[in-house]
């Protein structure tokens, strides 16, 4: 095992991924420190979601390695430590007969073994998680009746209920209006502040996000920038133009190859 010290939550080491002949990620190397709140940004199709899936072991990269808390991802067993909120649209069945409370309690099932049902202390955890995302009033509503933003808060609560050390959110605000997005980011910032949790927020929208996170990483097949928010803002204008400029160039390049 590699010695990363104890301060690194996620280490990605020279990771490359391709679907067929389409390169999605090229030689991505990055370290995400414990206790940081990282905004991972990149245009659509830049490989953000694929990187997250590799980090969670849901996709196997053709090259490179991912370490979670110092452990290789394929050997990693402590999934309780990690909360994951996926892009809303691609998963879950909105017509599923379950209340918000039930959805959140599903987050505890990893810990509650066979035969065992939720104890009063587990129920309290569910309430606490619902309160921390300001959704305790909607606990007994059907998940399908809630708005997109509210559903996403419920999914955060589901990820939070097992007290994870690392929370990964993949484009949680897709389809959520701007106002709700801002209050959503504020809630994440408070969670980060109150729980000393490592947060990774994936988004294609650089805008308001930077005022809430501690670190920023820009991804477009490769890592173009990774540093704290201050560094990012200082270099912002030329970095961003180079970043999106490169994106345009890549598309053009692909086009010529075909």
């Amino acid at each position, binding site marked *: 095992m590699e010695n990363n010290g104890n301060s690194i939550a996620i280490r990605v080491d020279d990771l490359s991924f391709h679907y067929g002949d389409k390169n999605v990620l090229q030689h991505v190397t990055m370290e995400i420190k414990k206790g940081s709140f990282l905004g991972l940004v990149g245009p659509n199709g830049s490989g953000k979601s694929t990187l997250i899936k590799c980090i969670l072991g849901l996709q196997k990269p053709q090259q490179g390695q991912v370490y979670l808390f110092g452990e290789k991802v394929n050997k990693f067993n402590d999934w309780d430590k990690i909360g994951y909120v996926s892009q809303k649209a691609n998963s879950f*069945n909105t017509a599923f007969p379950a*209340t918000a409370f039930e959805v959140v309690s*599903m987050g505890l*099932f*990893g810990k509650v073994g066979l035969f065992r049902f939720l104890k009063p202390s587990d129920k309290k955890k569910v309430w606490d998680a619902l309160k921390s995302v300001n959704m305790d009033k909607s606990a007994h509503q*059907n998940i399908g009746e809630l708005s997109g933003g509210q559903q996403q808060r419920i999914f955060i609560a589901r990820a939070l209920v097992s007290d994870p050390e690392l929370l990964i959110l993949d484009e949680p605000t897709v389809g959520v209006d701007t106002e709700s997005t801002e209050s959503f980011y504020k809630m994440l910032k408070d969670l980060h502040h109150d729980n000393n949790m490592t947060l990774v927020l994936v988004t294609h929208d650089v805008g308001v996000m930077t005022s809430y996170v501690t670190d920023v990483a820009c991804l477009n097949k490769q890592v173009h920038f990774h540093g704290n928010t201050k560094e990012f803002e200082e270099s912002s204008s030329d970095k961003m133009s180079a970043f999106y400029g490169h994106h345009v160039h890549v598309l053009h390049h692909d086009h010529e190859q075909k």
Partner: protein
Amino acid sequence: MSIFEFFQALLQYEFLQKALFTSVVVGIICGIVGCFIILRGMALMGDAISHAVLPGVAISYMLGINFFFGAVLTGVLTAIGIGYVSQNSRIKHDMAIGIMFTSMFAVGIVIITMMKSSADLYHILFGNVLAVRMSDMWITLGIGLLVIGLVVLFYKELLVSTFDPTMAQSYGLPNKWIHYALMAVLTMVTVASLQTVGIVLVVAMLITPAATAYLLTNRLSVMIYLSAIIGVISSVFGLYFSFTYNLASGATIVLVSAFLFALAFFFSPSQGLVWKAHKSRKNRLELMEK
């Protein structure tokens, strides 16, 4: 024959008691398993697997072993085959289902015809609940207990993987194995239902009571109980009509469950079309008054 006379006959004839008992067990397990089948969007898959059981039943019959083993074998093989074809070609999942299950069903028909017992074929396809033997009854009960036990034991896993497969995977739940385990359970339920509703109509018992319950509640746990109760009501009344009018039990049971579905479809308090129309009319009137 009145219901009263049916009860008298029930006390009198042992074959009717066995039929009733088997029907009730089948109603319960089809209702329970059906909830997961419809919520996973696998109604068509349920139809396929129940049909694919036929060659297994035929081969078991030929070899003189219990239906159960052959049925589970061909049912699960078909599920694997469907997955294999759709993952390794441009053939989509629904096409793969259509191809695989009809082929299996055809193989079953050929084998049974070669055995020259078309009466058995008829009973396997359409059910003959009044001919339930003691051994069939015990098999049905055994399968029933096993299925209920599995659902209780793995309720949480089934719930999570049905609600949100991506999340289940990120938890390290083996979605694929859960899928195939459910397919195995489906084949067992089909075997248990062979004599009550028969292969062709098992799928109705899997889908209709669960769909009816789905219209009546917003909670999975409640839905499962309701679905089982609706399954039992369908089975018992279906048996009554089958016995009274000398009709194939599978058909009468399915018709009762379809009738219950229609009731829920039009009159369910939250989802029913009648109340919805009434509510929207009321809202419109209120709006106009304002």
